[in-house]
């Protein structure tokens, strides 16, 4: 059970990381900026991870410690 909680926390943290690096931050566009081709693959990963947060509620996991350690 403990291992399960850790795995879920890890997934949630990865979800938070991916959401940030893919959707937030300074956006530079224009002729001198080249975009990365296969970025859709990363988005697919985010969709899969979203289910981890939902699962967390179902399993009644209520505590993920807010600290740098979980990142």
């Amino acid at each position, binding site marked *: 059970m403990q291992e399960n909680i850790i795995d879920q926390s890890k997934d949630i943290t990865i979800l938070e990381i991916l959401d940030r690096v893919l959707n937030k931050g300074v956006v530079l566009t224009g002729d001198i900026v080249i975009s990365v081709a296969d970025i859709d693959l990363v988005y697919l990963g985010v969709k899969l991870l979203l289910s981890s947060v939902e699962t967390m509620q179902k399993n009644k*996991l*209520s505590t993920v410690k*807010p600290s740098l350690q979980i990142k």
Partner: protein
Amino acid sequence: MDKIIYAILTSNDRRDELTKLLSEIRGISDSALFNITYNNISVVAGDFSSNKIIVDKEFAIDYARVIEDLAQHFTLLPVRFGTLMESPDAIKEILIKYYDEFKQNLQKVENKYEFSLKVLWDYEKCSGKIRIKTESEDQNAAKLFHHNSISTDYLLKKLKKHRFENALLKHVEQLIEEISSHLAQLNPIHKFQKMVTPNIILDAVFLLEKNKKDEFIHAIDHLKSQHDDLNFLLTGPWPPYNFVEITLK
């Protein structure tokens, strides 16, 4: 070889420290990092071969790790993953062109942390309670219709749905109000997103002074203890991803 941009940061008179730090951390696919500086602002970038490799989740995580390492030493603006340029000269051109915007945004996030708070509930259970509360109003509305017909059934059904959705929204707004007033003394900048999914009723981000970190965590813990039916998922501190709103062309 293309150059991938990680972050824009305030280097001031700490350029040697930055150079040393960049020599100690590695970028995506173990690539070396370098900085391009103009006045007191630096762009951190690294080599990136977009032709030979497939971009995957691990790349994005490596990318975030570099930003995290830099954020522990410098005030920075994270750049969205996937920003590639052809050469250091092109990066310098962007830095000079948008220097003022970068400076302004760096000042806004200086000495601050970002935190994320997701509030979850058991949708079936909690929405059921709210539905019971709205049912009495639905019964009153039904009395107003003297004749049963397909159209009145349709209208009643729509009205019922509307009332239920309004009650849900009101519930979430009350929670936002409670969180906002509870955190008011810490004076964070915040953004709230309501009902992200049926189970995630609130997705909030906060930007606050670094020295208020412990107070903030304590305040969220207190809120958590007041709501047995809700799960509070707090993560952070993060670099200020959600409070950088610049799109440059």
